């Protein structure tokens, strides 16, 4: 079936099987920051923004996204605020294997736009759907609190 998506500001047309998920579509189209792991809507590595809100691309049919606007990490590379978030992830030593990073970054970017002066508890609740199996989330919290302007 024919469909159209605005991905990172650019309108693209696709011809998909009705069973195709948004995750499948994005990866086959070359957006490799969008990753696959649990494929059950749990781990958050496939997170993208749909119309500005974080969603799990593994749990959305590509055809349901038809007409919506998708943003991936690739689409934020020239965004100064996103670059600052990336720098903080590096400087705070968040990275270990790095597999969960794109999902984390997208969710954190959305959180800044949704929550004002969040508490530690609110930050943790917002990120509950982004699993990292290397770290204990300490580095992420350090970076995020700086990014969100929340005092230690």
């Amino acid at each position, binding site marked *: *079936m024919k469909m159209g998506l605005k991905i990172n500001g650019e309108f693209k047309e696709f011809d998909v099987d*009705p*069973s195709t*998920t948004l995750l499948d579509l994005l990866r086959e189209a070359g957006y490799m920051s969008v990753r696959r792991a649990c494929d*059950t*809507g*749990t781990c*958050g590595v496939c*997170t993208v923004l*749909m119309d500005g*809100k*974080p*969603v*799990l691309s593994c*749990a*959305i*049919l590509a*055809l*349901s996204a*038809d007409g919506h606007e998708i943003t991936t990490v690739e689409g934020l590379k020239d965004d100064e605020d996103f670059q600052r978030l990336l720098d903080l992830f590096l400087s705070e030593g968040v990275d270990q294997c790095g597999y969960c990073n794109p999902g984390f970054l997208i*969710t954190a970017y*959305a*959180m800044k736009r*949704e929550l004002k002066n969040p508490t530690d508890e609110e930050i943790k*609740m*917002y990120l*509950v*759907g*982004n699993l990292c199996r290397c770290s204990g989330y300490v580095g992420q919290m350090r970076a995020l609190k700086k990014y969100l302007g929340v005092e230690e």
Partner: protein
Amino acid sequence: MVLIDRYVRPKSLEEAYELLTSVKGARIIGGFTFMRLGTVNIPLLIDLQDLGLDFIREGEDFIEIGATVKLGDVERSEVIQKHFDGFLSKTVKYIWSVQLRNIATVGGTVFARFGFSDFITSLLVLNTKVKLYRNGEMLLEDFLESRVSRDILVSLKIEKEERKAKFRFMRNSFYDFSILNVAVSAKVENGRLGGFRIAIGARPGIAKLARKAMEYLEKNGLSPETISKASDLSAEEMEFGTDIRGDAEYRKMICPVLVRRALNDILSESSGGNRS
């Protein structure tokens, strides 16, 4: 794995209903979040997102939530937040993850009658009606016990009233489904509490009202003594089952604890409550 032969986005409820009833095995997509976890071949998947059902509006007597509203929009809605002390928004905030709540829909959750649903349990203690395209309006508790299946949920209508409501759950971890969930509420009229409602969900069957416990509180009012009795009654009148998260015996044991805590929350907030 879910295999879908055909996908459509009807432009009217009439068209959606016609498709649903004319194609054998046709299904309506809610958020797709749970449906996709099954192994099923769907000849026709009907997506309601173009029907304008993504509204939350406040009428004189009801708050109406359209079927395609996302749980995340319920959480963020100012209309929802300002009623029942934000009870429904707060409950939704505990459901799975931000990303999932931005996909899962009100209609997909309620119409599917998911046993694990925290949302349904919470709605049951508010006076909620479901509005169906073919079967019209009915109380949520009646819908949950009915066999209505070939129909389309249009919206939920929640009665606006001064009602205190509390939600409690037991989980193995925060990021999991509830092993058991409990919601309670009481209507506040002239400073007195009445119209008690107690719902128990994730038993693991679909949530239902603990009517004997509700009747007991209606007759005896809310006090530390009656809370204890009502909590025990609620566990006695429910059936509990066993699944991967917990066994029936465990659920039966924690049920009165959660009900007691929730009712105590209401009592402590009610400056003495109804001592009649």
